[in-house]
């Protein structure tokens, strides 16, 4: 047969196959190296091992629990041994699309970590002495539940606090607290992202950006988003796609991050000057008429701005545009150059690039400058101003609000929010705080602003992560301030040493959660599950308690909270138990299968149908594929007309805000939204009138994008009500001649805060954190060379670290990653031996000294690799030397430090840390003076604007300020 005949024969074979309704070619090409086992073979996938043998796997999806990106993982469960052999990406996950960073596959290290906590432990001896005994779950649960029950019975609900680091889930635990009726939710967010969030919140009512990177023409990052941060892997892969199409990347970062190395424009400004640069770009857009006038006219709350700030001027859009030009005329490129050190010419070029994006501008700031500086929240305000000017908002290639790209399915029961106000988390000095004032807990407890009888830390390590860690140690070791401390954690940490109970919780492959994050213009729901449970169930076993499949007695939190709730209220007398009672079998506990089964059946549109098409239940579908895409291409929701049915007895209020008497429809998506106030007659806000049409608008008081925040103006901050540049606490004028700014917030791309020390692969790649120092500064400081010890003095103490002389940092600025410097006190029996130095802790009054006694070293364990540890240096814990810097508006801890750097003194040793907590108290008091308390500013006698987001939202009457401080 010749070659042409062969071609005919193949074509005929194809025709016949297609005629039978089957496929001939196996779908999209799988040539590239990241191809995945086809999903129809996930029950039994045979892979060739390095030794040439074959091994049969069940492939079970779950969700990574290392950073907050929640990328899909696929566990390779050996069908013979029923152990996980490796984790790869889950190609069915719409966010991560099968790709992972190093931290995903390293979950395997965490599972097999020889130092992990396998059993519930109870303290023996004094707090922090380091001695533990194994207890049963029953003993621990009964003890904890008894104390909580007493607190509830004695009307001390706020004595119970749950403090979360990495949430990794959407609302389960908040609902537990709501069911208990305690305002005890505390987060880590004010040391993380609340600066950025606040800026977004005051613009659009929603507190996170969702940039459509893949479709953007220009991407502007005030972050290191190609290597770390929220949601770096899902976002990075879309940024890369955009760049392949020719999109331009602008990166603002004082440090040459991996991200900056990929930029078309890398801007390395003086820290704190970012908003000045962004406003100069905005000013250029306005000056040159490049903004989208129609978008501004339709969607900004310019009328409100004119009415409040310029009532005597003509109330016309033309007048507003004139004022807008005036308002930003001072932000010239030359002005921005003076502040930022970035040349006016470069800024002009960048501004032109931004202008060229038109509506395809994707921008992002999360922590970075927003988390570093006093007034950092204005960086997010200024950044979003660019989108708002160009109309690059909620359109293809622009930036969306998070809630439109997020789907939180309604659970079977939604308990009402607590009728309490917790002054420890929402103190009245910070009425506009974006999140709980979590890092001030030691100060507030010492000041008697509240009491804590049962304190849960959950994947949260404030002693190490927060500023002023020694004050945390002082607080957590004082049982008159914290009655019972329960640490819920998969692995040892500096805070767990100070607990009364250490309760082992599962890793990403050992627990149930659902979550959904804004990663592109779509909505998806991801499912985390104990993969060995799912694998055994596929093989026909029935597993009713996740402890049956997890290592040791490691549990998972859903079952833990349900069980604890039942023990708090065993007979239902407190009215709590019912929230977690089976609907199918009244009188019994709700199981996770029932809980998630109900959600997937009733609250995820399209999932039951997709499952049925494959002959699966909705829960079975999620156990098999791990994620479901609810919607793609959500588009501009603000432009959607409000349906007639929702306009019952509608009334149009100030500046076109539309109110209705129609009740809010029960949507399946319960993504957190703010609650703009009803009108005087009690109608709820439903939309906004734009050019005669009633459109959905934005969840802000005005229903529009709030260029002008009346909330800020009315609550004491009129000078900051529009996007302006606020000078940072590390502005050069504040530093003087002998101090430099220390940037401490950046991550090492393969590590994740305190959570990855139990991953040997990651530790081998990155285990130390030298101080980035520019050669000019190294010279000025006496010829410091890479590896030399330097002393870094903060306001409250110092740390001794090795220098890394590099041109990758702006002169006059130093940088040190916060990801390293883990430690365990001498005598502590638990601890991570591959990433924690052993230290001595000495205290004299308020003066503390931490000295490194030993670095890490090889050791024998169940994992032969621990005998091969070749590194001893695990970095220096700089955060201990930082005082608290609460931003008076957003409540964000402003991380940047003004420091003096000099050569270490004789007698200084690597890793030395010295701090005076009395000095840190003074710094706290100085920053407290910047606040404008609700007591002085509240326009309506409440503690906080009711419309703002709050994880637990008490009823409105609870917002009223008490006559005297409680």
């Amino acid at each position, binding site marked *: 047969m010749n070659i042409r005949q*062969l071609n005919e024969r193949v074509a005929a074979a194809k025709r016949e196959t297609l005629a039978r309704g089957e496929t*001939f070619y*196996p779908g999209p*090409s799988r040539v590239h190296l990241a191809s995945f086992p086809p999903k129809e073979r996930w029950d039994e996938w*045979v*892979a060739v091992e390095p030794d040439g043998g074959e091994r049969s796997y069940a492939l079970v999806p779950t969700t990574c629990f290392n950073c907050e990106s929640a990328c899909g993982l696929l566990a390779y469960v050996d069908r013979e041994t029923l152990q996980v052999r490796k984790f790869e990406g889950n190609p069915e996950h719409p966010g991560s699309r099968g790709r992972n960073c190093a931290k995903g596959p390293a979950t395997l290290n965490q599972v097999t970590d020889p130092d992990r906590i396998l059993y519930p432990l109870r303290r023996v001896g004094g707090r922090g002495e380091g001695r533990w005994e194994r207890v049963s779950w029953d003993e621990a649960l009964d003890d904890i539940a008894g104390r909580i029950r007493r607190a509830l019975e004695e009307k001390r609900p706020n004595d119970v606090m749950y403090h979360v680091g990495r949430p990794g889930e959407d609302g389960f635990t908040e609902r537990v607290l709501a069911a208990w009726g305690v305002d005890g939710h505390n987060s880590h967010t004010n040391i993380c992202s609340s600066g950025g969030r606040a800026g977004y919140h005051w613009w659009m009512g929603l507190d996170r950006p969702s940039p459509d990177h893949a479709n953007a023409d220009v991407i502007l990052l005030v972050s290191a988003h190609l290597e770390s941060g929220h949601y770096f892997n899902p976002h990075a892969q879309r940024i890369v796609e955009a760049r392949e199409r020719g999109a331009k990347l602008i990166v603002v970062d004082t440090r040459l991050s991996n991200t900056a190395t990929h930029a078309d424009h890398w801007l390395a400004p003086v820290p704190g000057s970012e908003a000045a640069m962004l406003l100069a770009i905005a000013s250029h857009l306005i000056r040159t008429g490049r903004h989208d006038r129609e978008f501004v006219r339709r969607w900004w709350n310019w009328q409100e701005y004119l009415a409040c700030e310029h009532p005597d001027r003509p109330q016309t859009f033309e007048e507003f545009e004139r004022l807008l030009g005036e308002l930003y005329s001072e932000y010239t490129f030359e002005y921005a150059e003076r502040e930022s050190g970035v040349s006016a010419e470069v800024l002009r070029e960048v501004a032109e690039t931004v202008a060229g994006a038109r509506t395809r501008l994707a921008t992002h700031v999360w922590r970075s400058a927003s988390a570093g500086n006093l007034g950092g929240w204005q960086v997010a305000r200024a950044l979003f101003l660019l989108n708002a000017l160009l109309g690059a908002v909620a359109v293809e290639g622009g930036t969306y609000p998070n809630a439109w790209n997020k789907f939180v399915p309604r659970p079977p029961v939604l308990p009402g929010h607590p009728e309490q106000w917790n002054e420890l988390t929402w103190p009245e000095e910070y009425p506009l705080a974006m999140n709980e004032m979590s890092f001030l807990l030691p100060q507030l407890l010492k000041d008697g602003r509240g009491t804590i009888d049962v304190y849960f830390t959950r994947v949260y390590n404030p002693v190490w992560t927060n500023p002023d860690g020694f004050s945390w140690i002082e607080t957590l070791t004082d049982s008159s301030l914290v009655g019972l401390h329960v640490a819920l954690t998969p692995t040892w940490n500096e805070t767990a040493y100070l607990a009364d109970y250490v309760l082992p919780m599962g890793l990403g492959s050992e627990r149930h959660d659902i979550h959904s994050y804004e990663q592109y213009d779509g909505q998806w729901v991801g499912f985390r599950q104990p993969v060995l449970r799912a694998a055994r169930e596929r093989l026909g076993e029935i597993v009713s308690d996740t402890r049956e499949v997890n290592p040791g007695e490691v549990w998972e939190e859903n079952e833990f909270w349900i069980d604890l709730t039942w023990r708090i209220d065993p007979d239902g007398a407190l009215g709590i138990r019912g929230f977690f009672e089976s609907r199918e079998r009244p009188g019994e506990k709700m199981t996770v299968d029932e809980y998630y089964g109900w959600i997937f059946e009733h609250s995820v549109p399209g999932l039951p149908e997709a499952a049925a098409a494959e002959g699966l239940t909705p829960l079975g579908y999620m156990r098999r594929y791990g994620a479901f895409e609810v919607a793609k291409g959500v588009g501009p929701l603000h432009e959607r007309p409000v349906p007639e049915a929702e306009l019952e007895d509608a009334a149009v209020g100030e500046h076109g805000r539309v109110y209705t008497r129609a009740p809010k429809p029960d949507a399946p998506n319960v993504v957190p939204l703010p609650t703009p106030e009803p009108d005087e007659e009690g109608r709820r806000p439903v939309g906004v009138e734009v050019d005669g049409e009633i459109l959905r608008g934005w969840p802000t008081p005005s229903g529009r994008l709030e260029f002008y925040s009346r909330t800020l103006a009315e609550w004491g901050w009129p000078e900051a009500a529009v996007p302006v540049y606020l000078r940072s606490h590390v502005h050069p004028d504040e530093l003087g001649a002998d101090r430099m700014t220390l940037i401490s917030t950046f991550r090492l791309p393969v590590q994740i805060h305190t959570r990855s020390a139990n991953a040997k692969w990651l530790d081998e790649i990155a285990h130390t954190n030298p101080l980035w120092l520019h050669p000019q500064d190294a010279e000025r400081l006496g010829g410091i060379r890479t590896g030399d010890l330097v002393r870094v003095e903060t306001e409250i103490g110092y740390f001794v670290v090795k220098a890394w002389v590099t041109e990758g940092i702006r002169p006059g600025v130093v940088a040190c990653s916060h990801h390293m410097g883990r430690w365990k006190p001498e005598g502590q029996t638990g601890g991570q031996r591959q990433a924690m130095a052993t230290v001595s802790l000495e205290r004299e009054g308020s003066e503390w000294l931490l000295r490194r006694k030993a670095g890490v070293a090889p050791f024998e364990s169940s994992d032969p690799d621990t005998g091969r540890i070749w590194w001893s240096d695990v970095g220096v814990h700089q955060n201990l030397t930082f005082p608290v810097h609460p931003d008076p508006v957003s409540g964000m801890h402003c991380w940047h430090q003004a420091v003096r750097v000099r050569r270490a003194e004789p007698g200084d040793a690597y890793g030395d840390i010295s701090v005076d907590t009395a000095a840190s108290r003074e710094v706290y008091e100085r920053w407290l003076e910047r606040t404008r308390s609700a007591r002085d500013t509240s326009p309506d006698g409440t503690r906080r604007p009711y419309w703002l987001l709050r994880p637990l939202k008490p009823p409105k009457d609870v917002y009223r300020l008490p006559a005297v401080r409680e």
Partner: protein
Amino acid sequence: MSELLRTLGVLCEPPLPHHRAMADALALPGEARDDEYAELFLFQLYPYGSVYLGPEGKLGGEARDRVAGFWRALGLTPPAEPDHLASLLGLYAELAEREAPQEWRRALLHEHLLSWTDPFLDRVGELAPPYHRAWAGLLREALDVEAAAVGPLPLAPLAHRDAPSLERPEEIGGVGFLEQLLTPVRTGFVLVRSDLVAAGRDLGLGLRVAERRYVLEALLAQDAPATLRWLARFAERAAERHRSEFWRERAAAAAALLAEAAGEAAQQEEVAHAR
């Protein structure tokens, strides 16, 4: 011919049950096995143009960018691996089906396929088990038929015109020379893992378990003159087998250079012995 070329492209992807119908239509002997596939295309002969045309003999780089540029020039978004044989054959089939201008197909065929398939398919024919050996034979034949149909290009392919040559060891140092020996476009031959195993066996030298570069380094360290002579013979054989002038000339030049280097190495050893 488009269906045949597309099918042949799909068959150099990792085996799937779906492939059986295609293999049956082509009457390929035996069946595709995961382990054989992995041995052939993941460990020995990488089915990517950039490996054979790139100045470093590695995946990606300028050689891949050039292929990606071709996709873009056609107004198409290049796939993740535009220079994979399956991608290229798929594109060729698509152009044929869409009745794209003949110049496009001619450019694709000569610039990005025939420019490297000669040494690649030759080695597949030599090293593969029957299934993929037959596949290589069919592909070679099909490409010949296409070449006759679309006609020649006025100039040699750009990747050949721009190709850097094998440099002398004294000019670039031992390590540089070693790396160039693993760069087909410079040497005119494709040296795979099993060749190095054969060299060790032929010469009675110890083998190191490592990347090719280190295996070769270890062989040269043990007996440089013998290893270089072996490589020279290897190059001569390649020159005899190649059908395309470019690859033939490259291999012949490499053979001469290697023979010369072997002589010099032997001389140096004698001098060292004498001392």
